[in-house]
């Protein structure tokens, strides 16, 4: 990796941090994507509508960005449909019982120096590394 490779992640990350601050400023809410997504599953609550609108913003951005840079959405690794389906289930169950994901714990939680979120982030980074190690180093990069 050269120095220039760190620029897009830094800029993208800054936008994520900015959006998290804006959601706090405007709506008074924490930008945890798994909680926002899970909350959309409970229609009728006070937070349902803005959560739904936030998700619409995410999906529409995907459509627009894809027109400009389709290469930003390449899957790029050898994973079967079964593995992808299992991974989705693990992420859905894990973020629900663990109350957060990379955004809620990793960005917002760490930014307010929550010990709980720091530990959660260390945990999912560690098991993410284990999964990547097992698939790439022990199973030859395909599963």
């Amino acid at each position, binding site marked *: 990796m050269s120095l220039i490779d760190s620029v897009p992640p830094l800029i993208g990350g800054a936008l994520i941090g900015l959006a998290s601050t804006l959601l706090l400023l405007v709506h008074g809410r924490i930008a945890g994507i798994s909680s926002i997504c899970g909350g959309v599953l409970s229609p009728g609550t006070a937070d349902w509508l803005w959560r739904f609108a936030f998700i619409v913003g995410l999906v529409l951005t995907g459509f627009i960005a894809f027109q400009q840079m389709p290469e930003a959405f390449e899957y790029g690794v050898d994973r079967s449909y079964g593995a992808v389906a299992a991974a989705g289930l693990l992420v859905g169950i894990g973020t629900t019982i663990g*109350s957060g994901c990379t955004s809620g714990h990793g960005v917002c939680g760490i930014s307010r120096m929550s010990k709980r979120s720091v*530990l959660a982030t260390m945990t999912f980074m560690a098991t993410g590394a284990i999964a990547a190690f097992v698939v790439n180093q022990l199973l030859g990069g395909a599963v």
Partner: protein
Amino acid sequence: MSRLIAAALIGAIFGLGLVISGMTLPAKVIGFLDFAGDWDPALGFVMVGAIGVHMSTRWLVLRRDGPVMGDAFPAGLPTQIDRRLLIGAALFGLGWGLAGYCPGPAIVSVGVGGAKAWLFVGTMILGMALSRARS
């Protein structure tokens, strides 16, 4: 209505950040998590940028009496470290490292990332619904 438009715009900024940073590339995410392999540290800078900006601006927001279009700032956020937190985070990480998607990038990719993004978001929502129903 303005509250909803604001939420969609903030979601769009968030989504743009995910796309620009490379988080919608599962191969890059897995390359970042694979410390033992050909480690690609680039995505670590997403955390640096996001935490740097959010940490340095959130305290300014919290000096206000309340949010612009909401009732109150979050209060009484959970602080307990228990088995649910750690088991949940562990399961989430396994899924993240297996498919290379976490919730945000998967949702941004859902319309354009092909069948695997669809499938991932579908089973992720199923997992959320199942575990919400149980608790």
